[in-house]
């Protein structure tokens, strides 16, 4: 192996920069996790080690309900967004040559990344309140639809990247070997696309789980998700229960990413 000529570690200030960056990234999170085990009502003054806030969160009906709701919405939105994103990615990559309007399509699909979230939130609030008035339906459907919409670009990007790196001649070869378009998709495109679809699904799930702004505007009464519940808590007394919930949330995210890592590595 040839030694690379540019050695990033040899640059002036590399160590300072690295320590600073990682410090800023991880110190707050570490503090949060440490104080989740604080045996005190304050989130800032350490008293001793305890699991009481985890217990308290576990026994808090509101937290449990919000968690279940969060997962329901995230699961539904991630699946719907991934299906839509897969179709969009196929439509925008499987073209024989770029045509006018293709860039516009990219922009259109990725619109949620560009439009300020608060604008979408207000727009959805007004839009959905009309529909609520007409139909009388006030279920989780609104949140699922809203989450699906802003999750699509996050699911779309890894799927499109995977499709673009895929050898187009594989699909041509399948067609040459008597595979109908559906069989080509089922037997060749989908198995090879799977890691991209999984990545998109994970990303969409985590993004949905995390959302505050749009959820806050769209939710009906009693539809708090975990993030909006936590936000609501900050308006009252803040206890390390928040830390405990966040810590569990963090562990869960790490678990999801780890599972994905191993699954995709085995596939690739």
């Amino acid at each position, binding site marked *: 192996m040839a030694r690379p000529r540019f050695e990033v570690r040899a640059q002036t200030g590399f160590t300072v920069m690295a320590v600073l960056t990682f410090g800023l990234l991880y110190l707050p999170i570490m503090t949060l996790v440490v104080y989740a085990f604080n045996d005190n009502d304050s989130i800032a003054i350490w008293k001793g080690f305890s699991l009481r806030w985890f217990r308290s969160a576990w026994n808090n009906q509101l937290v449990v309900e919000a968690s279940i709701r969060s997962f329901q919405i995230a699961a539904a939105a991630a699946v719907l967004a991934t299906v839509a994103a897969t179709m969009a990615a196929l439509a925008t990559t499987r073209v024989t040559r770029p045509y006018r309007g293709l860039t516009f399509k990219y922009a259109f699909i990725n619109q949620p990344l560009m439009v300020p979230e608060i604008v979408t939130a207000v727009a959805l609030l007004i839009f959905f309140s009309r529909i609520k008035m007409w139909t009388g339906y006030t279920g989780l459907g609104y949140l699922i639809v809203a989450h699906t919409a802003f999750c699509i670009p996050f699911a779309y990007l890894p799927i499109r990247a995977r499709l673009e790196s895929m*050898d187009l*001649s*594989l699909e*041509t*070869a*399948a*067609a*040459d*070997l*008597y*595979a*109908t378009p559906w*069989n080509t998709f089922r*037997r*060749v495109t989908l*198995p*090879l696309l799977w890691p991209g679809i999984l990545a998109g699904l994970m990303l969409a799930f985590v993004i949905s789980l995390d959302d505050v702004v749009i959820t806050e505007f769209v939710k009906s009464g009693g539809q708090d998700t975990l993030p909006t519940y936590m936000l609501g808590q900050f308006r009252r007394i803040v206890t390390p229960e928040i830390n405990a919930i966040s810590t569990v949330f963090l562990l869960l995210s790490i678990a999801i990413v780890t599972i994905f890592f191993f699954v995709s590595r085995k596939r690739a």
Partner: protein
Amino acid sequence: MPDKPDRNAIEVRGVSKIFGTGDSQVAALDDVSVSIRENEFFTLLGPSGCGKTTLLRLIAGFDFPTDGQILLHGDDIALLPPYKRPVNTVFQSYALFPHMTVGQNIAFGLEMLGKPKAEIAARVAAMLKLVKMEALRDRRTSQISGGQQQRVALARALAPQPKVLLLDEPLSALDYKLRKEMQIELKRLQHETGITFIFVTHDQEEALTMSDRIAVMSSGKILQVGSPRDIYDRPAERFVADFIGESNFLEAAVVASANGRATVRLASGTELAAALPEGFQPKDRVTVVVRPEQARLVREGGAASGVLENVVYFGTDTHFHVHLDAGGPFIVRQQNTRSGDAGYAPGDRVGVAIGEDAAQVLKD
């Protein structure tokens, strides 16, 4: 139909393919017609961009002609999707499915045709045997060498027993020795399976050694179709003579012509018998082509005279570069013998003797 349709595997009739629209239109194929016989090793030969791959893709169904017909055993297939054509392709990049084993790759086409499991297993085994890959059935395609991938690609395309096998420069990714091996292997496979092969290449040597017939293509047109010997010995056009092998071009005046033969007078004043391309009536001035090995260097006399400029030794033969008195270069290639060369040295005055039936008149 004037000719018997069952004798031709593929008949291309007046096919054009235009890419792009408006001002950026490019005709990749321009009114091409050619017939490919049953059980023939047919090669489309030409430089890159000549339209050979486009024609192959039209026969496979990956693209559709702008105009014209493509007949397979008499039926027009020009507008059928690829999965409805009994035609298979060996791709330049092999395009093996990376998520399947060697055996699964070979079985794919048969599965898509809905063949029974037992038949598929038997055919996969037979195909593996045919390409001598029995031991590697359960390997991933990423775990085998380039030459082995080539064999799998061949087996996969042959397994459904297509009417016609299309090969798109399949040997270009292999190194020289493996390429030579695969050339012989391909000929053997074609012979054993009795399937019509349509082979695309830009390599003239490959085309000459493997083909029953060759179509030489340039700028979206087929210039000449014939056996390797026809193409080499009787090139009809300057492009064909230039693209295949080395050629000497001589300007000449037509003295007489009849029955496919002409008498021409070279710039040196010597008169020479030359063959005419089929059905060609020469005007008064023509270009004549002579292959380097069809001419001999002489001390005196010959059809033309000049000065020897360069002598290049090639082991099996020697190339003599002569500058003709009438202008222009002329290359003579002579077989070497152990007794050494005839003592020609650069600067010598020499004559070029052109053998009987060595000269060929070109259409342009």
